[in-house]
């Protein structure tokens, strides 16, 4: 095990203590596992709450702050949080205008947020929910749990967060979130497997010289294994997979995302290839974000997420955001 940890059992608690120390703008309840922006509830604003298994940092805790999430609920590593956390988060951020849950489409997240929504409504909090399901590697059919939520989560949280910060109603914030999700698609590739603290060894065996196409963010194997491809070939494959499903008719925002262990140097090089293929396909790119944002612990690899935007979404993208991991425009 090559991990910078104490014991597997305390990984999430330790990280939350470390976050609390690093980010005075966050209220971090380590025991209850809720990360809330310090000024919550913000009068007149809808609360935006997300959460999911840990191991995807900076998602979600790194996106809590003005212009993005009001609160995040980190679960155990790769395990969705429990309803108690979400209810607590909702109560902490509700200013009376209601709360939107941003839920990545995994059975665990869906079920736990569903229970939480019921409980929160019992407490008199108005709750709406939006499912993020952008991963084109999974067919959205009766024969799967539906497309997974991956990179588009960042877009949903940023854009709906900007709307919430402007004082938009719950209906409006929810509709922005839904539009963003419907306008976004992702595809991911792994160059190595993941080692979770609990398991201590790679979740699958990927010999050097091979890669997994169509992976998720939980160390699950992908849809297909292939011999190693170049950055150029991977970009062609991933972008085409996204475009085939998204069929954008206007400009997009691109997220060129690292899975955690791929150096930024390689990610930027990969971005050059992503931009090349997009321009070859006649897709214009309004904004690009390159970095490790929606990660899978120590997995090497990358994903591409495209979100088709209109003027309003572009305005919301450029709106100020002030979180641990995304900041601009104040």
């Amino acid at each position, binding site marked *: 095990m090559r991990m910078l940890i104490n014991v597997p059992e305390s990984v999430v608690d330790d990280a939350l203590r470390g976050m609390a120390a690093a980010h005075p703008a966050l209220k971090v309840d380590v025991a209850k596992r809720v990360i809330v922006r310090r000024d919550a509830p913000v009068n007149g604003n809808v609360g935006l709450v997300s959460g999911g298994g840990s191991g995807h940092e900076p998602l979600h805790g790194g996106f809590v702050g003005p212009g993005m999430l009001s609160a995040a609920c980190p679960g155990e590593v790769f395990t*969705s949080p*429990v309803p108690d956390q979400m209810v607590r988060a909702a109560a902490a951020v509700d200013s009376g205008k209601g709360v939107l849950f941003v839920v990545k489409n995994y059975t665990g997240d869906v079920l*736990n947020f569903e229970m939480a929504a019921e409980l929160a409504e019992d407490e008199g909090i108005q709750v709406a929910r939006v499912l993020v399901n952008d991963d084109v*590697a999974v067919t959205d059919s009766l024969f799967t*749990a539906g497309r997974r939520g991956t990179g588009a989560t960042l877009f949903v949280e940023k854009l709906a967060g900007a709307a919430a910060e402007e004082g938009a109603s719950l209906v409006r914030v929810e509709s922005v979130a839904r539009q963003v999700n419907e306008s976004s698609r992702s595809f991911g590739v792994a160059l190595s497997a993941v080692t*979770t603290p*609990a398991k201590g060894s790679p979740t*699958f065996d990927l010999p050097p010289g091979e890669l997994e196409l169509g992976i998720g963010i939980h160390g699950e194997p992908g849809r297909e294994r292939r011999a190693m491809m170049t950055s150029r070939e991977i970009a062609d494959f991933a972008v085409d997979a996204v475009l085939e499903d998204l069929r954008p008719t206007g400009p997009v925002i691109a997220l060129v995302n690292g899975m955690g262990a791929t150096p930024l140097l390689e990610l930027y090089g990969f971005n050059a290839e992503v931009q090349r293929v997009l321009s070859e396909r006649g897709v214009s790119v309004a904004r690009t974000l390159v970095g490790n944002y929606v990660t899978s612990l120590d997995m090497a690899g990358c994903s591409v997420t495209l979100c088709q935007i209109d003027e309003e979404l572009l305005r919301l993208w450029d709106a100020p955001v002030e979180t641990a991991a995304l900041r601009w425009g104040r």
Partner: protein
Amino acid sequence: MLDAQFFRVWMTAMAAAVEREAARLTDLDSAIGDADHGSNLQRGFRAVAAALEKEPPLTPGAVLALSGRQLISTVGGASGPLYGTLLRRTGKALGEAEQVTPQELAQALRAGVDAVAQLGGAKPGDKTMLDALVPAADALGESFEAARAAADEGALATVPLQARKGRASYLGERSIGHQDPGATSAALLIDTLADVAGDAA
């Protein structure tokens, strides 16, 4: 007749069984999932055992309902709400009786299993815990040992299936050839029930 004590022993024995089998459950989950099923249940059933010890409920229904609530509040993931609902709804169906018959338990378990199917939207054959739970609930009317056999068989029978629910469904055909971790832990739950019933008999 089965009393609150019987159900507490069942839950405690299940907690011990999960400790014993956690690594195996996580290994199964790493083949077609995200390698946490063992530690998820460990966290949950430790909390169940602690809660039952702290303030032992006095009826079979209350034991299962408390256990289910503990699972919901501590496990997370898919299995937390599903197992939590299974026990909570089974417990609810048992009502306030201080003792219940095996027949009543079988009926109540059926209600719990139905709730799981409704919550998760899965059917037998989707390669989930239901593949062990549904046949077990059916066979429990007959005997504890029949339920054990049915659950074990159901869990084994998930190997050749292609998953249609949960994370394993993302793998498509690559999920074939692996035993479902949730079906395996469900069989463990029924095995433990049969063990406890055998010891009590």
